[in-house]
């Protein structure tokens, strides 16, 4: 009982570490919660497709300049 109580107290302290975000405008707060809710667990399910989409868009917009940028970045380490 005592160890369970201590674990629960520790977990509650952890969960309530910070107050929930309030952006001061209800629709904005809802949008924020929707976006962050999807990014809290397994964010790469969203990040990978999104990054690939932006990379393809960048290629379609800038063409060979993207290839030059990649060359620059590869020299960048």
């Amino acid at each position, binding site marked *: 009982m005592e160890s369970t109580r201590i674990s629960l107290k520790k977990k509650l302290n952890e969960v309530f*570490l910070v107050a929930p975000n309030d952006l001061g405008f209800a629709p904005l707060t809802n949008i924020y919660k929707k976006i962050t809710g999807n*990014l809290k*667990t397994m964010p790469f399910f969203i990040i990978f497709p*999104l990054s690939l989409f*932006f990379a393809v868009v960048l290629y379609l917009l800038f063409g060979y300049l993207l290839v030059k940028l*990649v060359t620059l970045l590869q020299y*960048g*380490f």
Partner: protein
Amino acid sequence: MDFEDVATNLLTSALLIIKYFFFLIVSPYKTLRKISLEGDYYEMGLMFFLVAAYFYFANFIRKFSNPPLIEFVFFLTNFFISTSFFYLLAKKTQKNLQFKNLLVTFSYTLFPTLIWFWTNSLLYLLLPPPRTLSIFGRAFSVAYTAFSLSLLIWKVILVYLSMRFSLRLNFYKIAYFFILYLCFLIPYSIILYSFRIFRIPFV
């Protein structure tokens, strides 16, 4: 503190870093929240060791203008300036903050940076630049851009969560502090580039 304690702490921290690495991919929110409460300096020290190992490896592949130790000292300077910057700003509005929490959580945000730089170094060996305009060159460029963007987004998420849990800031304050940080980081990076210290800032 004797040698056995230090060795045990180091081994525990190494295991925790491996565990947290995977959990930061799967659930960054809960993991950074836990790290902000339970992280310690041994973990930060091991992260710095990984950074130092990278500088020596990269120097082995491609000679830097400066010795790797100097590059590592510059990295440490950047790291402590960045964390102090956020901590001192946050202290004006928040009470009961601990610098240690920010240092430890911020050190975990180095994972995306390390992955990108290590991958870049290995690609320099396996697929050395320049990239051509062939179909393979273009495909690789798109894939590389997607990979870099993914790591950048992950980095932003980790930095945001680090500041949220260590400094107890809300969304607006984090965004505002970050914009102020960029106003300092961009000219600072240009100075480091012009002095041939870092081509791309190691943040």
